[in-house]
């Protein structure tokens, strides 16, 4: 058994909140540059140039890439041989978010009550997901999620008879409905299977996976490639001004489901799809 101080988790979460917001992941940077090279529509080229210049400024000057520094989605994969000491785990994570957002000059975008509103003032609580895994380490991932794109997400409980075609149509329909709102070029996370809630979590996890990776099952890897190509034939383009580059990537995560169902969730993200991981 290995002991890990709650305070260490706080420090790591605080650091990851700041770094994720200031430095765009390498896979997203590479995709933006690749798409800029392929884009042949003039206004779209200009938009992609500004998007690339923007993340370069943020990276060099250590300022947030986007002013919507998001809700802090925190994923902890906790080794079953770890014993957390010196404090409450959830509070340790929230304290990390509080410190990161305060000390990093990040925007506080969380309201205390969904209907009655009222800013919490420190961007807490984190959207915390814990998973118990083998081993004696903790893998911490922070993915700040903006709501311009989150608001364009969708979930549907399909009948199994809807089949693969149902899923394909739903993906295109959701991207079409999102249009210019989620700051395209977007990243699309798709979760298929599980229960209502698990499908949504799979879609969120799909956004944490590098977009230059693929689903381990060749069937779904081919579906990822096909749907990305079809999305980029819609013509929405960067910012919705028209063009080829509507999406930078599409990741699918799957799991078993019930004989009566085929849940499918689509979590839309923007060209500022941020996540950063550290292992304690």
């Amino acid at each position, binding site marked *: 058994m290995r002991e890990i101080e709650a305070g260490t988790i706080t420090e790591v979460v605080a650091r990851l909140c700041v770094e994720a917001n200031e430095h765009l992941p390498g896979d997203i940077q590479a995709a933006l540059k690749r798409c800029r090279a392929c884009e042949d529509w003039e206004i779209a080229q200009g938009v992609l140039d500004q998007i690339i210049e923007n993340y370069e400024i*943020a990276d060099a000057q250590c300022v947030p890439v986007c002013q919507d520094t998001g809700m802090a989605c925190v994923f902890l994969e906790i080794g079953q041989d770890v014993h957390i000491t010196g404090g409450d785990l959830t509070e340790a994570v929230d304290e990390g978010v509080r410190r990161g957002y305060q000390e990093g000059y990040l925007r506080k975008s969380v309201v205390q009550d969904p209907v009655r509103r009222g800013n919490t003032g420190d961007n807490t609580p984190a959207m915390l997901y814990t998973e118990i895994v083998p081993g004696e380490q903790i893998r911490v991932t922070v993915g700040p999620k903006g709501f311009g794109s989150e608001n364009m997400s969708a979930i549907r409980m399909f009948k199994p008879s809807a089949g693969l075609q149902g899923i394909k149509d739903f993906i295109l329909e959701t991207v079409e409905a999102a249009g210019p*709102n989620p700051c395209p070029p977007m990243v699309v996370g798709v979760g298929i299977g599980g229960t209502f809630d698990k499908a949504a979590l799979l879609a969120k996890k799909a956004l944490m996976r590098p977009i230059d990776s693929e689903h381990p099952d060749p069937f779904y890897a081919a579906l990822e490639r096909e749907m990305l190509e079809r999305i980029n034939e819609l*013509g929405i383009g960067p910012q919705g001004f028209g063009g080829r580059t509507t999406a930078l990537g599409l990741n699918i995560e799957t799991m078993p489901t019930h004989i009566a169902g085929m849940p499918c969730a689509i979590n839309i993200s923007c060209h500022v799809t941020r996540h950063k991981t550290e292992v304690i």
Partner: protein
Amino acid sequence: MERHITLPLTRELARTLHAGDTVYLTGTIYTSRDAGHKRMCEALARGEQLPFDPKDATIYYVGPSPAKPGQVIGSAGPTTSGRMDAYAPTMMSVGARGMIGKGARLPEVVEAMKQYDGVYFGAIGGAGALLAKCIKEAELIAYEDLGAEALRKLYVEEMPLVVIIDCEGKNLYEDGRAAYLARKNGSCT
């Protein structure tokens, strides 16, 4: 067409702007988003004055991140404009003319733009670090308790924008995409 324009956005100036134009904007603008718009429209309903003179004003839908020491403002890109659709016609009815944001607008907003000669500009969503460079002065003028959503008066220089919807109701989201698809599919339109 590329235009360099100086505010205020008079009716005459608004009428010369067309969907698809690239615009570099210089002058004073005001920031407001969800909670600020709600409060302003409630104030108007009570017959009160707004915290700024709305005549020919341009409103930037933005909630900036906090300024680091030595910065004028933190990152400051546009938020999704559709959430202000419920308030935009009211704001135009008291004289506000320009709106800066990103994303689709409802038909009733476009109708109000035609009626009041409004212009909807798009800034690049997600380009908060780049857009902050154009903001030379920032002053908090009202609703400080709203934090990032407080009302601010900004002075911007050569802010890069695109006219998305003009005062005749022409819409770049529709026309730009159609033109791209027409060319891609080999049509001559």
